[in-house]
Every structure is written in C-alpha cells, then in structure tokens.
C-alpha cells in the first residue's frame, strides 16, 4: 500500500486540520513532519477531504502546508513480556528511557520502543500441526513472579490457524520469530513475543463474562466491610481536593489482593507519581516477597503533559490490563483522575466546535465513560481459567459538587460509590469516605445482616448528633446519647484507619472479622448505664482499648489480651442484646 499523506491546512491549539489524499480512517495515527521531528497525532474527525487530528505534542512551530504522513494503523499499544515494572506516558513511551535519551525535559517527537529489547526463556506449549485460535497460548516465558503467556495475536482472523513451525525451548529476543502459523488458505503469519492492539477497542477473546462476586480485598476496613469491591467490578471515588483521593488510591495500590496493579496517573500532579515511583521499588509485597514494583505498571500522563495523550492514557492502561487478564490473572486498574480525562475530551470537543452539553462536556460523555468502565469484568477464557479486570476511578468534581456531569455519568455505570466528604477530611477522619452517602452493590466479607445493623446504628447516631446540636446535651435522653456514642465508636475505631501506622494501614480479612464481631456485640448490647457522664467515660475507655488493639499485630500476644479486656469491659455493664441484634446472633 502506498504511503498516504496530506498537508496541514489549519492549527488551533492542539488540533490540526489536514487535507489528505486516498483513504483515511477514524482514529488512525498520523505524523506531522516538522523538520526532522515527527509529531504523533490521531484522526478524530473526517469531513470530505479534511481530517481533524489531535496532536499528542505541543503544536508550536507547525505551519500551514507542512507534510503529514498517515500510518494506516489505529492508535495502538505494544503487548508482550516486559510490560511489568515499566513507567510509561499516555502513549506507552517509557519515561525512564526517555530521560536517559533527552534529560530533564520531555522532548517532543521522540518515541521509543515500549517493550524493552530483552531476551526471555521461552517454553513452547504447542507443536507443529496443532490448531490454534487467536489468543491461544503458543508458549510461555517467566516474567518476574508470573508465567507470561505468549499468545496468538488477537487481531488475526478468528478462525483455526495451523502451527507450521515453533521454536524449541530456549532463550530468544523479544522481537525474534518464535513461530509461524498459517490459515486454511495457506496465508502464513510470523509470530514474535510482541504484537500491537488498538487501545480504543476492548479485547474480547474470552468465552463468557461472569457476575463479579468474589470480593477484592483492599485491607481498608470501611471498604471491605461496608462498601466492598468485587474482582471484575467497578467503583468510583469522587471527592473535593484535599479529601484524600490519592492517598486512598495509593493505599489500595499497595494492599489490594490482586496479581497486577496498573496505576493510570491521568492529568494529576507529577509529584504524587514520583512518590509511587520512588517508594514501590523499596516496598516488599508480603504475599510474594518481591518488591511491589514487580506487580505494578504505571501509566503517567501528568497535568502538564500534552492533553491529547492524557485522553489516550486511560485506554492505554485498560488495554494492558485486558492483555494480562488473558493470562488468567486478576488486574486492578486505578485511574486518577477520570475527571481530567473527561476534561481532555471536553477540550477537544470545544476545538471541534461541537454543540456542547452540560458544563460544555460533549454529548457523548456518558456513553464514553460507560464503555470505558464496561471494559472491566471477570471472564472465563478459552482454556477454562478465569481472569478479571477491576477498575477504580477517582473523580474530581468541580467545587466538590457531586451533581456535576462526570460524577453523575460515572455513578450510573459503577458497582460501588465511595464518596469522600470535605467535612470528614477537615475533621481528619481518614479515609474520608462518607459512610452515610456511599453505597456498594457487591457482597461484603462480613455477614450482611450484621453490616446492615451496624449501618443503622451509624444513621441513628448521626440523627441524634444533629438533634443534639439544637437541644444541647442536656436535652438528650440517655438512650439516645448511648446510640450516638455507639455510632461515634464505630466510626472512630472501625471506619477510620491510620494509613501511617505500621499495623493499622492494612487490615486483613480475618482480622476484620474478629474485630467486627467484638464490635458488633457492643453495638447490639443494651448496657446498664444510668447517666451520660458514665456513658461517655465507658465508651471512651472501650474506644481507647480498640485504638490500642488496632495498632497491635495479629501475631502479637497482646492481640488476644486486648480482645479479652474489651469483652470484660463490656461484660460489666451488659444486660441483654437488643431485639434485632439478638435475632442476628441466634441465626448464626
């Protein structure tokens, strides 16, 4: 095919219009030739002989008449062994390698191989004459702690291919030919360990999608117990600035019980990524004994990097997630923040002079957000194994107001909502997830009846505290006051968690179950307390014990000691279980 080309006819911000010859397809990649620089861009609209391209670089210096070269390929990522531990920009450019090449600054027009030229220990899984389909495994290589499947490229025709040749076990460079396959018509296809896939098309090489049911443990109590996330599910974290979205994502990326974590830092502060970048290679994952970096991929397109690449970055991240899912692994994708991605869409929409929707976001905002989150899921693969992609996205609503379009469009499609509140973060109650507003449709790790009961205490306690603001402590009955204190207790010792404490920052499921059981028995108990002063001091004493308990490791001998002490403390005043609580405890 002859190289298609065109010439620049207009420039407006990061959008360039090009007059082209031949055929050009939507989302095709074009390069603007500027001296010896080639500026990558993507076709986002075609009208007659004019294509509008969003340029992934700064557009200064481009002039009308400059030559444009079309690649014939949609915007793609390279998939293969070596993706793990990498730090990419939104277009899968490896940033550390770029730094070696260009120094402190991101020089435009420099694109490096995303997958490092390395050799891998290849073990074949098929033999000559075998019949394979796209996404079938032809061999494996060990990538860190995982067995990386070398698969038949997903883009090939979905029919039976016959293995014509396959390399024996041995060490091969990542781009070497490792197999040749041919289709029924005899067309041959050479395979290496890497192949491209267009980022805006979901990878659908699976048998069926399943209902997400298995909890994804984050070791954050308020999430696992009250607002759980499931493997293959989706959740969102909206919150005003300074409410702790990023700290929460950071904690999740460290503690989540999944195989691989992909962090998409999309249009946020560079400094935050740097912390992850410098910390993860030092932190040891207790599950594998290797550093956290070995299970992490960072896609980093921070706020000062070109905005069009920011739009691409979340797709780059989810495509890599889907690729590893094809190996039967559980992937967690953390996107921080999806609002910046939506804003990138808004900027382009504005330049295209599209009719704006609410707050000038494009009319297709909702469908684009929906189809992005829909790329999550738990699936059965052709070989019977299961893999999942879970997506957790933060949302940065303008003015902290959840009524804005991005939050609303996101809420429609996610399975759990962890809303952060300014009120809680101002009061230093972390994680600042609002327990009254937030919700989850996934099953908890704890008996749902108990969780619901605890939640009702929280609601009632909140009501009492509101009333108390009007009538004062003196106008509140002892019974109500105790409910209020119980709500506070639940909040302080269970919902709040100290991410800077060596023990408290991660609460494993088993521990959550033990602690919650003890706590539930207190919440459900009628206590022999006569006046408010005693009520306060009793609950304060219990609270202090819980706080100490929370910072004692599970294998510490004091763990049982604190548990017993708390139970004794409560036992002294215990009368009986309150009706509903008694029922729940009997059923058990």
């Amino acid at each position, binding site marked *: 095919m002859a190289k298609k080309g065109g010439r620049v*006819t*207009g*420039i*407006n911000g990061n959008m360039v*219009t090009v007059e082209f010859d031949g055929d050009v397809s939507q989302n095709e990649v074009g390069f603007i030739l500027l001296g010896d620089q080639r500026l990558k861009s993507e076709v986002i609209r075609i009208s007659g002989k004019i294509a509008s391209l969003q340029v992934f670089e*700064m*557009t*200064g*210096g*481009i*002039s*009308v*008449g400059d030559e444009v070269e079309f690649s014939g390929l949609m915007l793609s990522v390279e998939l293969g062994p070596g993706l793990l531990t990498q*730090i990419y920009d939104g277009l899968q450019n490896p*940033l550390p390698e*770029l*730094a070696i090449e*260009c*120094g*402190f*600054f*991101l*020089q*435009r027009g420099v694109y490096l191989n995303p997958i490092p030229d390395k050799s891998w220990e290849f073990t074949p899984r098929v033999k000559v004459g075998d019949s394979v389909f796209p996404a079938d495994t032809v061999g494996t290589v060990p990538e860190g702690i995982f067995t990386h499947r070398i698969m038949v490229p997903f883009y090939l025709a979905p029919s039976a291919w016959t293995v014509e040749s396959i390399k024996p076990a041995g060490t091969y460079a990542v781009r070497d030919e490792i197999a040749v396959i041919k289709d029924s018509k005899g067309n041959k296809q050479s395979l290496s360990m890497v192949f491209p896939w267009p980022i805006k098309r979901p990878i659908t090489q699976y048998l069926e999608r399943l209902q997400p049911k298995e909890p994804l443990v984050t070791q954050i109590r308020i999430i696992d117990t009250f607002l759980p996330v499931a493997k293959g599910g989706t959740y969102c974290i909206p919150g005003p*600035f*300074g409410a702790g979205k990023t700290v929460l994502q950071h904690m999740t990326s460290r503690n989540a019980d999944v195989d691989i974590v992909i962090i998409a830092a999309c*249009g946020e*502060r*560079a*400094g935050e*990524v*740097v*912390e992850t*970048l*410098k910390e993860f290679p030092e932190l040891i994952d207790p599950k594998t004994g290797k550093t956290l970096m070995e299970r992490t991929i960072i896609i*980093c397109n*921070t*706020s*000062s*990097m070109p*905005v069009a690449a920011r739009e691409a970055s979340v797709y780059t991240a989810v495509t890599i997630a889907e690729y590893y899912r094809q190996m039967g692994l559980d992937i967690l994708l953390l996107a921080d923040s999806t609002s*910046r991605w939506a*804003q990138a869409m*808004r*900027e382009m*929409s*504005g330049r295209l*002079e599209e009719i*704006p929707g609410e*707050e*000038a976001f494009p009319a297709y905002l909702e469908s684009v957000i929906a189809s992005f989150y829909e790329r999550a899921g738990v699936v059965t693969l052709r070989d019977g194994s299961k893999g999942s992609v879970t997506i957790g996205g933060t949302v*940065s609503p*303008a*003015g902290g*107001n959840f009524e804005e379009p991005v939050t609303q469009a996101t809420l429609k499609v996610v399975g759990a909502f962890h809303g952060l509140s300014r009120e809680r973060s*101002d*009061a230093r109650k972390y994680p600042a997830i609002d327990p009254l507003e937030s919700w989850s449709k996934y099953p908890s790790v704890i008996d749902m009846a108990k969780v619901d009961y605890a939640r009702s205490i929280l609601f009632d306690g909140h009501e009492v505290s509101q009333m108390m603001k009007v009538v*004062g*402590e*003196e106008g509140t009955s002892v019974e109500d006051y105790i409910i209020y204190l119980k709500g506070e207790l639940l909040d302080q010792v269970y919902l709040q968690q100290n991410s800077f404490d060596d023990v408290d920052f991660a609460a494993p499921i088993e521990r959550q179950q033990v602690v919650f059981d003890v706590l539930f028995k207190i919440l459900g108990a009628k206590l022999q307390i006569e006046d408010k002063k005693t009520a306060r001091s009793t609950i304060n004493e219990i609270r202090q014990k819980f706080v100490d308990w929370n910072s004692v490791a599970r294998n510490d001998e004091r763990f049982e000691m604190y548990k017993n002490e708390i139970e004794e403390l409560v036992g002294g005043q215990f009368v009986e279980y309150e009706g509903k609580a008694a029922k729940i405890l009997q059923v058990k």
Partner: protein
Amino acid sequence: MQKVYTKIDSIAGNVITVRASGIRNGDLAMVTSAHGESLANVIKLDREEVSLQVFSGARGISTGDKVRFLGVPMRISYSDDLLGRIFTGSGKPRDNGPELTENLIEIGGPAVNPAKRIIPRNMIRTGIPMIDVFNTLVESQKLPIFSVSGEPYNEVLARIAMQAEVDLIILGGMGLKFDDYLYFKNTLEKSGAMSRTIFFVHTASDPTVECLLVPDISLAVAERFALDGKKVLVLLSDMTNFADALKEIAITMEQVPSNRGYPGDLYSSLAARYEKAVDFEGAGSLTILAVTTMPGDDVTHPVPDNTGYITEGQFYLRHSRIEPFGSLSRLKQQVNSDTRDDHRALMDGMIKLYAAYTEALEKKSMGFQMSEWDDKLIKYGEMFENRLMDLSVNIPLEEALDLGWEILAACFEPKETGMRSELVLKHWPKEAS
C-alpha cells in the same frame, strides 16, 4: 525571511487576522500602527488566515497597518543582567534600563519528565509560625494563597520574599494595582533584596495579553536559573487575573465556554504553569507561591477550585490570618520529621486543641453550660490567636515551637494535651510545671 503584510482582515478584541502564508504556529509578529509598535503572536492558523493576539491591545489598530512576521516564537533574554530589573509582561524594560537582547530563550517550554523528578526534601523557612510550624513550605512546592480582595496577601508575599532563604526571587505581577506594584518595589528595595529579584509586572492598566505572558516568561527565566543551580522562588500575584485574561481571549476566539465563561482548558492551562515547580537533581529548584483571590470568598469558583486540584496544598488568608483549618501543605511530611522531634506532635496537638476551642466558642455563643475545660480551651484559643497566628509575629521555627509549649503550659496540665508523655516531659517549660 521576514514578510510584511499591510492588510488586516479583521479585528476583534485583542485578536487580529491577516492573510499570509508560510507562518508557523506561535510565531511573533510586529504590528506597526499610528500609536507605535507592538508585538503579537500567532494563536491560530486556518489556511491563509492567521490569527494573532496583539500584546499591547488592538485598540486604535487600523486595517491598513503593517504586520511584519519575525519568524521566531516568543523569547526572553537570559543572563545575570536580569537581576534587579523590572520588565513588562512582554519582556520590555519598565525601569528605564537598557533592553536585553542577548542569549534568548524560548518561553513555555516542555514539561519535566516525571521520571527525573525527586521527592522534595528541603524546608523553606519564612519566619511565619503559621507556615513554618503548621504548614511548612518546601522547596519545589507549588502553593497558592487563597484570599479575598482587601486581605493583605501582597504584604504576606513580600514578607516571604524578603525572608525566604532562596538565591533568587522572581515576581510575576498580573493585573496588579499600581500601588501594589510600588509597594513590592519599595519594600524589596528597602530590605536590600532587590539585587536578587527580577520583576515581570503587568499592572491593571496594561493590555490584557501581556497579563497572559507573565507566568510563562517568569517561569521560563526561573527554570533556567534553577537549571544553573539556583534556588528560585517565583511569586505570582494574582492568578485569578491570569485566568480572567485567558477567559477574555477564549471568548474573543469564540471558544465554547465551560464553567462561568472560563475556557474548557482552564485546568490544563493552570497546571502547565504550576507544574513548572521542580527540584532538579544535581541543580537548583523552582518553588511557586501564588495568590489566587476568590471572587465572593467562594472556594468553589472555577479558578480556586481548579487551582486546588493542581497545587500541593493551599494557605487560606482570612481576617489577616493564615487559617489553621483548610490550610494545608501536602509536602510538610517530607520535611517536618527532621526539624525537631516535637514538631509533628506539636503541630497536630495544637490544631486539635484549637478545633476544640472553636467548638467551645460555639457552645458559649449558644448559651450552653460551660465547663472548666471549656474555659481552659477559650484561654488557650485566644493566646494561640494573639501570639502565634498574628501575621506580625516573625520568629524562627525553633522559637515558635518553644512558644507553642509556653502557651500550652500556660493553659493546660501536661496530661490534658493529648500528646505522647515523653515528648511533653522533654519540652514542657520548667518554670510552669
């Protein structure tokens, strides 16, 4: 090759269009009119049609005026000769000194590779206890001061400029009142800090387009000095005026507005500037302190709101005090563990007690019964406000910490402070206990 065009097709706001070919995006042009010469730069190209924003404004420009393309983008001279000088937003001298044309550098350069950034590690001392103790300023931080008109934000900025331990100060003024400009100039001259200061000033009466250039030009120069090993502090006042200038140009260019008339790329535009703050490994650093006035004291207004999402914390300046609540330095954890062993504990402890004080105050105003503890809190709160929060207090960090203990000792018993006993034992003033 220079090209001269003598027909201006359209003039709208500060944007003119001419028909020309071979022009590059971002290039400069010189517009000569009856009122003198002005630079302009290319902001949009559509076939032959070239849109330019005229730095000194399009007022009085005629369709027959001369436009000469210079074939280069906006640049600024970079050398030590800049020190002590005052320039306009387009880099022209404002102080009767000579024009600088040597060693030109481009403005609005590329972003720093995140992989080359390092975790910030040095504190910047300001002598203001509310900053040093409670929300420490850190080298390479970007931090806005959220305030409202009438508050002494420029005074705070000037004080930090004079006292901060940095090699170089660059002041970018946007829409400054002339009085404020003179205030900055006089204060810095008097304190002798002028020789390590560079001004890029756009006053309220200057053309809007120059306002847009101030952050870029200030930060381009700052970045160069930082690369040459200098610790640079950039002060920007007031970023809301910058955002308003962006709005003005966007509306002139008939862009679809997103929120209260501001363009959809407001976040990206602000981030591109703030993210210039950096600590270069093996070289200097660039710290940004900016004033953002909140129209109507509304933090949800698009400018402070977008700013808050970009910057590493914020200072609220209200009633001539830096508010203890809401104010936040996201980077303080990186440095306040190595200052003094009691720094973190005192910082948290005093704020928690101050929060309890505000509750007690509320209780008092509601007419509820006051306990002995409430009275103690009220005494504490008042001392805190007068002796630490007052902006006129000017003491080094260590003295401020000692003063904190003194205030605590004057109001409470050691066990009432809620702090670790060993710390209290070590720092509690002897004569008080």
